[in-house]
């Protein structure tokens, strides 16, 4: 037995058995290696590796401390040669706890492995494969199902807030189902897309949905992730550095978010029911003047304007006369100017309270079933989710079903499919900038009654006076119009996986993401003031997005002695076609008719189509030597239809290396340090997220005049347009102390983006506003720290803490002198050289001239000059703030008592960012020139007896400090008690005693956004207005709805 010859024979025959097609080269390598060890005394150890369900294939078996290795075959069998010096065998497989077994002379060692829960052994999903976290050389953040399953939000992106370092999630507003913003390690582009690539079970998702631009609404996008049931998600893996993302080459510059859905497992069928009921209220509100304050404020403001213009207040054209008439008019005559002090009949309406809801219900019912045989496993789920918004009229309803099936046709061939069907119905609201957006009601005068006493309807509803209140009453719109969005989303893939020979796997997959969206907008005749439609009207929008992708790739795994090699190579193709049609019509017979069929006048019929394709070739090799050296390299060649004919392909390589120092001799037996890995990576990723025909000169046929067809040139060509490039370097350490009770990661990175796909301004005299060019560079650099600790772990009680911290510095380095703008015109957000993207550019407010109440600004003629002026146009604009936080972080604590009670809470913090409140501030502040109601915190403005105020004197219809300035740039830092969950797991013993088939029973309560600590004076510091947000425009608050504070109670039952 113990002869070299026998051993060679055995090995050889084993290989031959595995595959006759195995190349001779490989065999020769094995021979060579075997000979190298000739001369030592060998013992052959063999056995079977299993888990609960049966034999395990692909388990790596290694001699501890040695260099030899083997892999179990399809029957779980392995065989490994050992010497006398070898004491222990180490069994490892992704997803399972590493197991060590002492050889002690045994020749047969059978092992049962168990699934693992330890952080360092986590399986992470990488592009086109998976890996053990410990073996990673790149930076991937993982969020597990258990971390998001209780959070009462419609989409998973909202749930991962604060869960991963360097991943900043901003929910723009409290409107349901709208686009969220996720930035992985900062914004790496200025004009092209900044969102990460989302990949669900290997299928790249359609990134933008519902960008409808209709006649009566603006193009507010819906959240493309809202069609995915978070309860179906097994894990979310966020590829952050280039080593991790480069396999997605062209698409990876903004990071990649890989979503893996749940799969069935062989064994008993598990059935789970879940039910959640929650109640949402605004997390934060803002107080406006009541009737007495309002009257007093506007009388004084009008008097001040009369004084300045030298108008006699008794003049019928005086501001004072105007305001008295205005109050009378706005109160529907309930205010009598003849009795200026009698407010007894004057209404005192809190408009904010009228449009914000408390205790808006959320209901979620889940069902799932999973199980299977050794051949077929399935996961089946269904969900009903219904959430009413904290803004009146806003409601999201989702029905979703999923079926994931994996089937082993034979030992070597596996196939399966994942299918997700969802119907999402969103009763949407108008954009923030619209008078019909509910929160704009705060601007209405408190003296206007909520209900018009003559009609019993909300004031402004015909037959009442439609011109009252001062602006359109959003409640009229809520009652007499809708924007009913329905998306039928069909997302899935079919795959086949063939083991050609042991270790060589071919996977082919075909994925699809089909969205059929419609938005029916109806505007009843009573919306006449807002819609301008005396007989009502409709707009029906339909959009289909067909997104297909196909991928074929080979994976080769080989363990030979101390060497582990994994090679992946393949190709992927994606094509997307989006078709939109819009029909607008007006003049309906009555409000009962709500579709175009009944409309007398079609006013708009349009249809459009847009397409893009991607073609990619990719390859990756991961190499591991012993347990301590990890080397990885990848490359992809990517083509995009969006670029100039000769500039379509880009090359995206990456390399990385990791050294597990704790596996090296000098640290191996260290008592304190249980794990230490240093890693470094460098790589290139790309960005092509621009308009589909960005390189083409375009002529549009929409220049219709007097119903005759007309054309106009609509886009400048750029035949040289090509990829935007991001080169990223990352160094990091992963560590574990005290038997991994303390683990963590520290990463430093630099991302340099060059050849930016920039929508640059061109002289307007050309007849065009912009051209897309590869111009300029941008840098993000930062640090990320993750720390996980098991603070207490005693019988009956455990306490774990996890903390993440990240700081990203963004710098626009070169734009060839260009300045790009976004956001609110008068207080623009800018991209300019030497500043982070999105800086606010505006005059610097200097407060009030105490002698006369004039608002004053610093002239800033020379930088830092402190001379002031009360002439607004004399104040130079300066960079006055950045919307980007200095750092973000989160801390989560988990407590477990007696294995029954779990309690966790998470704080997250966003620190050092500036919010642009000008959108609201210009209308609702002391010194504003409008008739809008004013925030209560503005009352303490300058008066002859209050000369030290920093708020300027109120002057009706005169801008006194209401102009754009740093006065309206506010610190947006906040710390939020994001999530608190208390749950009770019924002990197994009790359930067993009950013996009614229930295998698990869990009840819980969760609170979302329970407390917010901030100095921000607007509604909510977590804000990005839907109408003013964009790549450059960040942190704009424009009557943007606050986040919801939601308290949920739930139950999960397993059978």
């Amino acid at each position, binding site marked *: 037995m113990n002869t070299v010859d026998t051993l060679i024979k055995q090995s050889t025959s084993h290989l031959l058995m595995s595959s006759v097609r195995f190349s001779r080269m490989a065999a020769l390598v094995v021979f060579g290696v075997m000979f190298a060890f000739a001369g030592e005394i060998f013992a052959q150890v063999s056995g079977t590796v299993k888990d609960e369900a049966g034999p395990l294939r692909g388990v790596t078996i290694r001699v501890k401390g040695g260099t030899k290795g083997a892999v179990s075959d399809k029957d779980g069998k392995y065989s490994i040669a050992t010497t006398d010096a070898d004491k222990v065998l180490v069994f490892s497989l992704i997803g399972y706890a590493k197991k060590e077994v002492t050889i002690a002379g045994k020749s047969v060692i059978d092992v049962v492995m168990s699934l693992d829960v330890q952080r360092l052994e986590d399986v992470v999903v990488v592009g086109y494969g998976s890996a053990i976290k410990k073996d990673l050389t790149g930076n991937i953040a993982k969020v597990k199902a258990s971390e998001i399953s209780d959070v009462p939000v419609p989409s998973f992106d909202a749930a991962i807030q604060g869960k991963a370092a360097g991943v900043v999630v901003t929910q723009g507003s409290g409107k349901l189902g709208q686009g969220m913003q996720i930035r992985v390690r900062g914004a790496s582009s200025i004009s092209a897309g900044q969102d990460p690539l989302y990949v669900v079970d290997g299928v790249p998702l359609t990134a933008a949905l519902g960008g409808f631009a209709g006649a009566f609404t603006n193009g507010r996008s819906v959240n493309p992730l809202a069609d995915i049931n978070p309860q179906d998600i097994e894990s979310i893996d966020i590829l952050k550095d280039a080593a991790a993302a480069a396999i997605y080459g062209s698409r990876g510059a903004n990071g990649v978010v890989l979503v893996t859905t749940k799969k069935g497992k062989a064994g008993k069928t598990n059935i789970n029911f879940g039910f959640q009921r929650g109640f949402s209220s605004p997390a934060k509100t803002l107080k406006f003047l009541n009737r007495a304050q309002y009257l007093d404020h506007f009388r004084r403001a009008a008097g001040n304007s009369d004084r300045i213009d030298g108008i006699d207040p008794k003049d019928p054209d005086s501001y004072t006369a105007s305001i008295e008439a205005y109050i009378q008019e706005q109160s529907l005559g309930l205010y009598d100017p003849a009795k200026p002090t009698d407010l007894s009949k004057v209404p005192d309406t809190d408009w904010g309270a009228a449009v914000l809801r408390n205790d808006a219900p959320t209901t979620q019912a889940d069902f799932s079933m999973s199980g299977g045989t050794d051949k077929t496993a399935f996961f089946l789920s269904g969900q009903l989710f219904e959430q009413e918004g904290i803004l009146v009229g806003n409601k999201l309803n989702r029905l979703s079903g999923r079926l994931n099936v994996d089937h082993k046709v034979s030992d070597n061939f596996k196939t399966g499919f994942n299918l997700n069907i969802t119907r999402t119905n969103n009763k949407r609201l108008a954009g923030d900038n619209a008078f019909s957006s509910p929160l704009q009601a705060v601007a209405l005068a408190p003296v206007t009654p909520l209900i018009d006493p003559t009609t019993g309807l909300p004031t402004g509803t015909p037959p009442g006076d439609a011109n009252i209140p001062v602006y359109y009453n959003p409640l009229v719109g809520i009652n007499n119009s809708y924007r009913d969005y329905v998306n039928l989303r069909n997302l899935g893939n079919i795959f086949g996986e063939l083991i050609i020979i042991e270790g060589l796997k071919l996977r082919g997959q075909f994925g699809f993401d089909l969205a059929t969206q419609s938005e029916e907008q109806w505007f009843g005749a009573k919306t006449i003031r807002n819609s301008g439609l005396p007989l009502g009207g409709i707009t029906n929008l339909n959009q289909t997005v067909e997104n297909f992708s196909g991928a074929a790739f080979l994976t080769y795994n080989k363990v030979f002695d101390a060497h582990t090699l994994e090679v992946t190579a393949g190709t992927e193709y994606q094509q997307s076609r989006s078709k939109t049609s819009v029909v607008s019509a007006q003049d309906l017979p009555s409000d009962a008719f709500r579709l175009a069929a009944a409309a007398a006048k079609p006013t708009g019929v349009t249809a459009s189509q847009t397409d893009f394709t991607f073609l990619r070739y990719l390859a990756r090799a991961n190499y591991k030597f012993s347990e301590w050296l990890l080397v990885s390299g990848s490359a992809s060649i990517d083509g995009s239809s969006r670029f100039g004919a000769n500039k379509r392909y880009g090359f995206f390589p990456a390399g990385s290396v990791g050294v597990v120092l704790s596996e090296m001799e000098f640290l191996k037996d260290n008592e304190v340090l249980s794990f230490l890995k240093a890693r470094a990576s460098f790589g290139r990723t790309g960005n092509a997220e621009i308009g589909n025909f960005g390189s083409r000169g375009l002529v*549009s046929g929409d220049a219709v005049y007097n119903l005759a067809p007309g054309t106009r*040139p609509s886009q400048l060509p750029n035949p040289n347009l090509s990829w935007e490039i991001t080169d990223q370097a990352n160094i990091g350490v992963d560590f574990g102390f005290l038997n991994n009770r303390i683990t963590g990661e520290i990463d430093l990175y630099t991302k340099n983006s060059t050849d930016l796909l920039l929508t640059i301004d061109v002289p307007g005299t050309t007849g065009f506003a912009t051209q897309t060019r590869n111009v300029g560079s941008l840098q993000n650099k930062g640090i990320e720290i993750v720390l996980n600790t098991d603070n207490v772990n005693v019988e009956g009680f455990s306490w774990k803490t996890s903390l993440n911290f990240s700081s990203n510095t963004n710098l626009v380095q070169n734009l060839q002198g260009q300045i790009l703008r976004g956001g609110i015109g008068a207080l623009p957000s800018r991209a300019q050289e030497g500043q982070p993207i999105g800086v606010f550019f505006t005059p610097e407010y200097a407060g009030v001239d105490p002698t006369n109440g004039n608002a004053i600004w610093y002239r800033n003629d020379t930088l830092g000059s402190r001379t002031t002026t009360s002439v607004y146009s004399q104040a130079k604009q300066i960079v006055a703030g950045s919307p980007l936080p200095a750092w973000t972080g989160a801390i989560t604590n988990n407590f477990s008592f007696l294995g029954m009670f779990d309690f966790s809470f998470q704080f997250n913090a966003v620190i050092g960012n500036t919010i642009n409140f000008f959108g609201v501030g210009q209308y609702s502040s002391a010194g504003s020139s409008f008739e809008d109601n004013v925030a209560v915190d503005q009352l303490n403005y300058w008066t002859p007896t209050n000369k030290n105020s920093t708020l300027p004197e109120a002057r009706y219809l005169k801008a006194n400090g209401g102009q754009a300035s740093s006065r309206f740039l506010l610190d947006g830092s906040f710390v939020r008690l994001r999530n608190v969950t208390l749950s009770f797991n019924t002990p197994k013993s009790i359930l067993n005693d009950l013996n009614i088939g229930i295998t698990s029973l869990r009840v819980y309560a969760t609170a979302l956004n329970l407390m917010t600590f901030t100095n921000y004076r607007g509604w909510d510091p977590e804000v990005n207005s839907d109408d003013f947000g964009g790549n450059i425009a960040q942190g704009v608050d424009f009557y943007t709805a606050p986040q919801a504070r939601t308290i949920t109670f739930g139950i999960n039952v397993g059978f």
Partner: protein
Amino acid sequence: MLPKHSKQIFQMKLSNIMKSIQKLTIGLSALVLMVIVSACANLLNVDPVTTIDGSTDLKSELSVKVALTGAYDGLSSGFIYGGEQSVYSELLGDDGEIRFRGTFAYLGNVWRKQILPLDASATTTWMNSFSTINRANRVLANIDTLLPEDRNSVRGQALFIRGAVYFELVRFYGKTFGDGNNATNPAVPLITTPLAAFSTGVITSEDSRTRNSVAEIYAQVVSDLTTAESLLPATSDGTRANKAVAAALLSRVYLMQGDYANARDAANRVIATNRYTLAPNFIECFREALPGFSGETIFRIPVLEQDGANSLNTYYSATPGGRRDMEVLAKHVALYETGDARASMFFTSSGRRLSSKWTDQYGDVPIFRIAEMYLTRAEANQRLGTEVGAKPLDDINRIRARVKLPALTSLTLAAILKERKLELAFEGHLLHDLKRTRSNISAALPFSANNLVFPIPQREIDVNKNLVQNPGY
């Protein structure tokens, strides 16, 4: 229960099927790979279907004609003839006769004479104007593609559009004609050729234009419109240019230059066509559906439900469509003589007095009315002491008679100007009439004040270093 051997056969068959499936998978994967590799070049060739590639445009006769329609579309945009510029003129020229009560901050800034270089008033006007000029230049450069019989008309229309846009630009962005040295006062860049970069893709330093002088722009405008008048057909449907439309605009241009003889003659040419007559009732001038409208109107911008709102309706009117922004104060109303039918062109909406000129939500917007031609001819004749076409007194009394005012027996220039102001109130003439007559807006605000001239848009200053900002900004 199957007999044992058939079960075996079944299993064998099954395993054969499995093997077939495996082979199929390999085959399919190989096929997919081959297709992708071989077809890769084609897979990335995706053409637009909603729009067309610019390189294919303007090759046919029809394509030039629809490009002309596109130029009219540009002219009709809200920021040119679609209403905004008319509103700016009224707001900038106002001295306490209206009060802007809307929420568009940039319009409030115009009213307060505090326009900022970032404002839409300055920016969008500029952008839309030059876009329209480029559209017109593209047509003018491709006239030869047309059939010979169409060339004059199309060229004349494109020249009219370019001249009209430049006239508005020079009035808003440059100093008033004659205020200082026209030859050195900067106006806007003069561009008479289509943008080369639309075919090359390369914006060059030559595209960073400098401002041409007020004199140069006026010369081009006069030249464009004079040529247009000579080329255009005598008649059109009123939404497209004809000889009279070009002459009407020329009369305005000459009046603005203080060239009264030419202004008079141009106005007289329009009147002499005898195709335009004063509508019997004043209100008919502003209601497309009323019978007098078409006779009164020389040129109009069509407004249809398909176009959406027009800016005049938006700001002046009330529900439906209007925002009630332009409150008319008592000071203005007091200017009308007793019995003046024009004094009834106001209505009160929930306590706010508004002009009823622009309440026709989808009514066409008159750009030139025959009444203006009578007023211009009268003023020019009065100033020159001539009686070309008619006596000034007759022209003015014609206007007065329509609004039920007694005929005047004698005439002064001031009376003509007052008649003009009231007749054309809220039609966009106020600022320009004040400027050309050197009338100060108020004691504190002379006609030549810096803040009555638009700033060059900030985005334009930022992107083109050759542009010099106007004084005061």
